[in-house]
């Protein structure tokens, strides 16, 4: 979990805490399409997982990434 928050904070360049997971794309200005790609790439690399292409569109809040990191 800490690792995930670290990825968010690092890429979005703002502090992300556990209670920010409900925040959506619309609410985080820094979460643009480039950041989105970067988050996916980082999660896939660091957790050794694959986020299926078809599901990427449905990701709308930070917490949506949780299900891919095996928690």
């Amino acid at each position: 979990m800490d690792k995930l928050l670290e990825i968010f904070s690092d890429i979005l360049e703002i502090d992300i805490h556990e209670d920010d997971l409900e925040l959506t794309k619309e609410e985080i200005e820094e979460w643009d399409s480039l950041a989105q790609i970067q988050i996916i790439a980082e999660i896939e690399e660091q957790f050794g997982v694959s986020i299926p292409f078809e599901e990427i569109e449905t990701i709308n809040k930070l917490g949506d990434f949780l299900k891919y990191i095996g928690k």
Partner: protein
Amino acid sequence: MKISLLSNINIDLLAKKLRRDYEVYKPEGYGVWVQEMLNKNSGLNNYNPDIVFILLDGDELINKDLDIVYIRKEIDTNIGYIENYIKNNIKTHVFVNNLDLSINKVQSIKDIRVERIIQSYWYEKLWDLNNKYGNFYIFDIKTLIESIGRNEFYSKKLWYLGGIKFSSKGDKLIKKEIDRCVGAFKGQRKKCLILDLDNTLWGGIIGEDGMDRIILSEHKEGARYKDFQKRLKEIKNTGVILAVVSKNNYDDALEVFKNHKHMILNEEDFVLMKINWKSKAENIREIAEELNIGLDSLVFIDDNPVERESIKSQIPEVVVPEFPDDTAELEKFIIDIYNDYFLSIKATEEDKKKTNMYKQNFNREKEMKSTASFEEFLKNLNTKIKIWKAKEDDIERAAQLTQKTNQFNLTTKRYLESDIDRFISSDKYDVYIASIEDKFGDNGKVSLIIIEKNDDKTVKIDTFLMSCRVMGRFIEEQIIDFIEDKYKRKGYEKIISYYYPTRKNKPVETLFEDLGYILVDKDKYGNKSYELLLDKINNERKKYGELMEL
């Protein structure tokens, strides 16, 4: 250091990563790399970067389905654009990658892999540019790709998602390579590589196993160490000085250097050998002191984790890399060490002679101990100081001196080759470079003075530095005498000079006071400025050598 990125694909992610460490210009969009180079008013040309990295994707650049004749023509055209930019921007360092083309086409066994031919044609063209232009370099992306494989280096997902080719891992490798290249231009290389002996230069323990049983050979097990030594020798030839710190009986260890037929490194390759039973920290401190270099310019390699830990905690300035668990990795390990800490753009003549120059220094010091007085010793050295206005072929060394000299450096201004070039061609500046020779050998070009003409009456000493190899011999007094005399004859009346304190230049803190300059200002940071009226020159300066202007 201003950096620019050009590409024919989307490299926004890479640019984002680089912007955290550098000032980066990257044009919007990605089909514009040629325009950016050719158009005089483009963002690139207005930005005027120190370094441009042109990263081209082979699959996007080349249409593989065309006839090879057309492909070659197309490559020639693209190379022409690049050459044009290199020629018109000789102060900008230009990197272009070798081309990588994926092999994903369905084809039969008999069909030729045209990708291989295209890649090698492109590489030949880059090779020509590399030989022709001093400001061109090949960015070796192929080696990066080969290190982890294409599947890892590229990401199909990012490509379909956002037109991005490199994976996160790929980006990181490219970023690391860019860091190395930029670091090399900044002249941040370390100076001395300190090596342990047992289980480092050879396998086994000489004191226990003896000459016949240590592991070192041309083939099989012993080749791990022999290959390691071969790379070390190459590193030494790029101007890195090697030293030994080992807990051993001196004679046992030396026996290996003298008589083992598979030793690549011999005694002469090392500037110092501390083979004794003292603590390694003590030996390492002695090395820094005797060579007159900072502890932070040392890298220490030892297979023993306890020794590594002890150095890390006692002398945190020294770089202590982890030793590979698997000794089959030794060769790769030392190449990485070179790339991370010692990478140089181009080895200069001085670099190749470095070990010898440091050695001559010892002989000088030995002689000093044996002669009666210091004065007498200096007189007996037969020092010859040659000084001249820096020319085209001094630029590389002059820039290197500004970047590397820390102790005898009054203002510690770091300059790039392009800066030095600018000073030399400007009427406002005079750049003098000096070489020092004595009976023990030639030290090469070791001192640099940059004079800025303020007005008809006044000159400023922008830079005055001298390599630590020749410090403490009053050579600076003769050089400054020469400068003063020179400008007095030209009709100047006053010299203004400066001392800016750094962590390392304490030895010259009062140089100008000692030379009779009048302190006119000192700010709260300790920055001092001085002046000297040229009709009041103090001629009682020490003079042990012979100074010649060329």
